[in-house]
């Protein structure tokens, strides 16, 4: 519809055409229209000549309103004979203007020339205009196997508020069938190229509609909405997440679907279907994923080299005309590749638009999530767009992260330029989150410790509480008894050791000394034991275990006595210089008893330990 309106409009303009207001003259216009994808690119070379009395610094470019609606990108740059390197091109500033006394239905853009054009001088520059939605499928509905034909309409004459002296137009099509095209005087077809012109000395606002109807099976991939989220982490990563809502903008699919035919005859079927999309990610992109609302999509391929990372993704199903899909891709970039510092501020330098090739984006929202604690935020972009700020709460945030949101409509791959977001960020803020985690865990343990040590009972005087406390005391006392007995047993071992020394070296004196020291020790220990025993005897909650403890103490005493006796006999025997066998015989009986007692004491100790 848009195009039929366009044609009519061209008529209207030509009828209403009024003489040029300016003194500029376009001495030569060379237009090339590239219809090789679903994005229409018009590249024109204009030679402007100042025929008036004054110096002029602005040149007006005119587009019919209906075309201007679809105009996504407009750039003017100085003409260079073989300028294919676009990096060094300096583009001129372009503004939308509304000059007076101009015919309605035309939108004007004013190009500011680098220096004013003096009288009689001429200047040559290039204009690149990129249009979306300019190709209209005709017929509008096709079957699954049909080829897609599209219609393009424009004017054979260059629409301009100035007189054009010499002009020519060439349309570059895909190397395929041309269904029909408008023939005017001097129309030539060379392979896949249609040429109109040259036309000479046409007045301002002259136009002559032309239409080309040709085959274009390239998938019309249009992202109706793309939300890009770029999240900066100063720990070394920039995470890019892109949410696409994609539609096939070509001829609508009609009739029956068949899976059989594309599988049986690979190349014949669904030539215009979107089967895959290719994204050129920055080099060193990592952790790439591809998923949608219901999970991962397992059909994607990734290969990378030092210059770029190429991601090929297939939608869940081949997209025929009018079909939709939605998906998300995400990847990480090393921080040092996109984040720089200048004048005490940091800035992110990253591409603005989607990395997909030949994708038209109707609405693009770019959200740059800065780390928590950034301040003094500003964004710089090469073209005009809506901007505002939001906050987002992500992992371990307290106040939320600042988000710079940029919104722009109608984008083409030419918009994929670098933009910058400047902000200030203190490096110490990086430590905030780890510290929070550490302190969180620390407080958790502290809380555990407090809980283990705190007395949470409600009543301090209830019987059960008191009993519990007494039992605690008893347990402590028993533990002490246990310790003391253990030490006693250790001294017993010392005695035994001294005996063994005696049998080896025969030094009676050393043995006696050992005996004396252990005697002292044991006395001390029994002294320590006494108050504990009296406590246990007095305590009512110790009744069940008291007998065992007493038994233990008694057994230990007995064991000690036996051991002493054995020691004395052994020492005596040595003093009497008895034979080794004699000593052994003497001891043997005592030894048996000692072993049995020791066993019993051990058992008792184990039992008490269990309490």
């Amino acid at each position, binding site marked *: 519809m848009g195009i*039929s309106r366009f044609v009519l409009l061209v008529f209207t303009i030509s009828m209403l055409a009024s003489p040029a207001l300016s003194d500029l003259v376009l001495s030569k216009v060379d237009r090339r229209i590239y219809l090789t994808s679903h994005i229409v690119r018009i590249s024109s070379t204009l030679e402007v000549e100042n025929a008036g009395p004054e110096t002029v610094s602005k040149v007006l470019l005119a587009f019919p309103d209906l075309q201007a609606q679809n105009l996504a990108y407009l750039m003017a740059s100085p003409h260079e004979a073989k300028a294919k390197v676009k990096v060094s091109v300096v583009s001129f500033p372009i503004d939308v203007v509304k000059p007076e006394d101009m015919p309605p239905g035309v939108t004007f853009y004013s190009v500011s020339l680098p220096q004013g054009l003096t009288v009689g001088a001429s200047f040559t520059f290039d204009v690149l205009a990129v249009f979306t939605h300019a190709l209209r499928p005709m017929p509008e509905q096709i079957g699954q196997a049909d080829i897609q034909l599209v219609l393009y309409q424009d004017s054979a004459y260059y629409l301009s508020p100035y007189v054009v002296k010499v002009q020519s137009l060439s349309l570059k099509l895909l190397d395929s069938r041309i269904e029909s095209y408008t023939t005017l005087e001097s129309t030539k077809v060379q392979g896949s190229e249609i040429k109109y012109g040259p036309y000479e000395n046409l007045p301002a606002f002259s136009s002559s509609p032309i*239409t080309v109807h040709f085959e274009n099976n390239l998938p019309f991939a249009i992202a109706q909405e793309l939300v890009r989220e770029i999240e900066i982490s100063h720990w070394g990563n920039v995470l890019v997440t892109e949410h696409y809502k994609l539609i096939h903008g070509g001829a609508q699919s009609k009739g029956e679907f068949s899976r059989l035919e594309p599988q049986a005859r690979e190349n014949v079927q669904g030539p215009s279907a979107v089967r895959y999309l290719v994204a050129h990610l920055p080099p060193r992109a990592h952790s790439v994923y591809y998923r949608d609302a219901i*999970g991962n999509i397992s059909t994607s391929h990734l290969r990378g080299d030092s210059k770029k990372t190429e991601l090929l993704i297939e939608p869940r*199903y081949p997209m025929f005309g009018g079909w939709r899909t939605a998906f998300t891709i995400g990847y990480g970039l090393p921080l040092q590749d996109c984040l720089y510092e200048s004048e005490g501020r940091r800035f992110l330098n990253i591409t603005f638009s989607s990395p997909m090739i030949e994708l038209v984006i109707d609405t693009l929202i770019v959200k740059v999530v800065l780390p928590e604690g950034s301040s003094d935020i500003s964004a710089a972009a090469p073209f005009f767009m809506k901007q505002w700020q939001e906050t987002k709460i992500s992992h371990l945030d307290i106040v939320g992260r600042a988000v710079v949101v940029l919104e722009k409509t109608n984008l083409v791959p030419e918009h994929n330029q670098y933009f910058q977001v400047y902000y200030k960020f203190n490096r110490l803020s990086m430590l905030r989150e780890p510290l929070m985690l550490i302190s969180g865990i620390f407080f958790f343990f502290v809380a555990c410790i407090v809980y283990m040590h705190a007395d949470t009972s409600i009543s301090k005087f209830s019987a059960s509480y008191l009993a519990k406390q007494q039992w605690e005391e008893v347990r402590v006392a028993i533990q002490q008894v246990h310790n003391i007995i253990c030490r006693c047993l250790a001294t017993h071992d010392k005695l035994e050791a001294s005996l063994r020394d005696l049998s080896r070296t025969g030094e009676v004196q050393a043995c006696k000394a050992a005996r004396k020291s252990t005697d002292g020790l044991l006395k001390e220990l029994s002294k320590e034991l006494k108050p504990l025993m009296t406590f246990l005897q007095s305590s009512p909650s110790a009744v069940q275990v008291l007998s065992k403890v007493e038994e233990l103490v008694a057994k230990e005493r007995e064991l000690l006595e036996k051991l002493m006796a054995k020691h004395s006999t052994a020492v005596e025997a040595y003093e009497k210089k008895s034979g080794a066998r004699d000593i052994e015989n003497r001891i043997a009986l005592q030894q048996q008893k000692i*072993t049995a007692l020791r066993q019993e004491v051990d058992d008792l100790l184990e039992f008490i330990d269990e309490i």
Partner: protein
Amino acid sequence: MATMPASASDLLKSFKLKTKQQELLIRVSILCLVYILAFITRLFSVLRYESMIHEFDPYFNYRTTLYLTENGFYDFWNWFDYESWYPLGRIVGGTLYPGLMVTAVLIYRILRFLRFAVHIREVCVLTAPFFASNTTLVAYFFGKEIWDSGAGLVAAILIAICPGYISRSVAGSYDNEGVAIFALLFTFYVFVKAVNTGSLAWSLASAFGYFYMVSAWGGYVFIINLIPLYVLVLLITGRYSMRLYVAYNCMYILGMLLAMQIRFVGFQHVQSGEHMAVMGVFFLMQVFYFLDWVKHMLSDTKLFQAFLRITVTCAVAVGGIALGLGMVSGYISPWTGRFYSLLDPTYAKDHIPIIASVSEHQPTAWSSFMFDFHILLFLFPAGLYFCFKRLSDATIFIVMYGLTSMYFAGVMVRLILVATPAVCLISAIAVSATVKNLTVLLRSKNKVVQTGSTKGSGGSKSSSKALLDQSQPFQKNGAIALLFGAFYLLSRYATHCTWVTSEAYSSPSIVLAARGAHGNRVIFDDYREAYFWLRQNTPQDAKVMSWWDYGYQITAMGNRTVIVDNNTWNNTHIATVGRAMSSYEDEAIEIIRSLDVDYVLVVFGGVTGYSSDDINKFLWMVRIGGGVFPVIKEPDYLVNGEYRVDKGAAPKMLNCLMYKLCYYRFGEMLTEYGKPPGYDRARGVEIGNKDVKLEHLEEAFTTSNWIVRIYRVKPPNNRCNIHGQSGTCNPQNLGVCLDLLGLVDVNLGNAPTKPCCSLIEGLVDLEGAVCLCTAVRANVLGIHINLSISLSLLLRNCERKVATEYICGP
């Protein structure tokens, strides 16, 4: 100076742990490891596939959880879902157990509050493993309560990796059972604890545990019947005590009141036959208490005997009469079919085909017991032996739990899940007791040997213990061998569990994986392909008809309205769909139109050899459809009682809707090298009807491996075509002309103006122009422009004589 090292060593000594503390440390660290193990062993599915929800029911749970997160609890509670059971709808809030969703959302909120920006899906995926980890803790405490801490630890380890439990709690298996097993075991543990201690606090906790269980899963009926049974057994065996009285009454009264808060359960506790046992035992407890009191007051035993007889007779009589009256008056509903089918495995097959059609409701095969329990199956009887040897209130409980749940596990495959905790606990008792006995043997002997050796040449080998040991010469070696045997078995168990988890239970069943010809992994993601296609490329209000298995998935992933889904509450509705599927296309289209269906979805495995497709489920559709509509007869679809799809199939089978939808254009397809076209790989036959023609439906989408096929219901044909309406101007139809207007002036004579011309054929010349103008002004296609020239051209092209200057009015 000399004291320095001494004090240092003292300090070291004070840091050195005592045996007790060492044991505690080891126990706690083992528990922590088991906790982590239970969690990570369930992550196989996430590693193999992705973090996604599995199977059928979890998708419904996920959808409701999403709804709960987005709309809050009250909206959720009052949610009427228009997207399922079209045109009936479903009162979701009143027909589900909300425990799972509320739990997941609670976890989600807590994490969000702690500023962990997780997605609700991740929470849902990991809920089941998290609760499985918690279950291991409960198993430890339960084991400790009924036996000792050793048994508790073994139980925790066994249950952490037991396949019977893992099958329902892998990551992504976001189903009620995931939290319900935790709730079940927790309730049982706390109840046993309450019985052991007689503490009000513990019985209160068990009431709340029961409440949680009721809110989470319909399996709470098991608790509410097992506990009175257990109490009854205790009463009969003369183990009545005040502790039991406190625990049971508190748990029952509070639990019942709390359970009534769940709308889906409502007043069933007092009205349903399945819940009557618990009430009967409650009254019996009161009688017991009363008798106890009377016995205490009366000193005369004879008098008491008489009193006892009268009271018991009266109580039983009153109870019986009350029950009878309730049943007769309809106040107490009789047992449901599901309950019967649990008690009698053959019941469902004869009476409720919809229950019998589900594979997890089949009686359990011996092999799946082996698969799910492995050595536990042999340890279980051993554990029972140990339990009987040391009979206490707690062991009686676990024995009863084990035996009853084992019976139910035999009735239905899915109930293996309920038996798993009991089997693990009882087996743990067996393992722990055996190992403990063996190590005691080893340790005591070691000690003697040690003490003997310290005596050196003392030659004290004649101690009593040593004598005992020498009397059984190979005891030590035997014990060591047995220990090694036990550890070997346990390690086999661990290997088996890991293998089963990774191979059998970690598949999401939405995504199918197979081995390709070169040993590489091939993924069939057809389900999601189809659901996503539905979600993106059909109208928002489209109704999709499919067999009920896919209902939940279509609503959750496809976001479209379905006719029937996995909540099989309305058998008639399902039978209607079954009838449509098993009728001829002409009859089916009537049903389809009456249900306002836009798309029909079938699942077909003939290309990939995927065997659980609709053709294999078809007989159940016939049975369920035939159960309500006697027009559908199962024998019509069988040939001599045999179900086939090849040339020898029954004619009704070859022409029914399901057959046509599955095999549409399949006859032209070559599936396998060396086989004729139309070779069905799932059934291994060449199909019988290769020339399938569809009249009222058309193929809308088929996934890349043909697993899901979606058909669009064509609108009914117009009664008569546009030519019949000659002489009338219908601007709405002239859109096609307006589209052409741009062309005409350019390609004079070439433009495909025929359709447009035919539209204005019957009109008088000027009328034709006026009509076109009306169409333009009526803004049929959203444009309003000056059409003077092109309009004239167009009209001229249609061989109409109109003044060339004809211009539409403004």
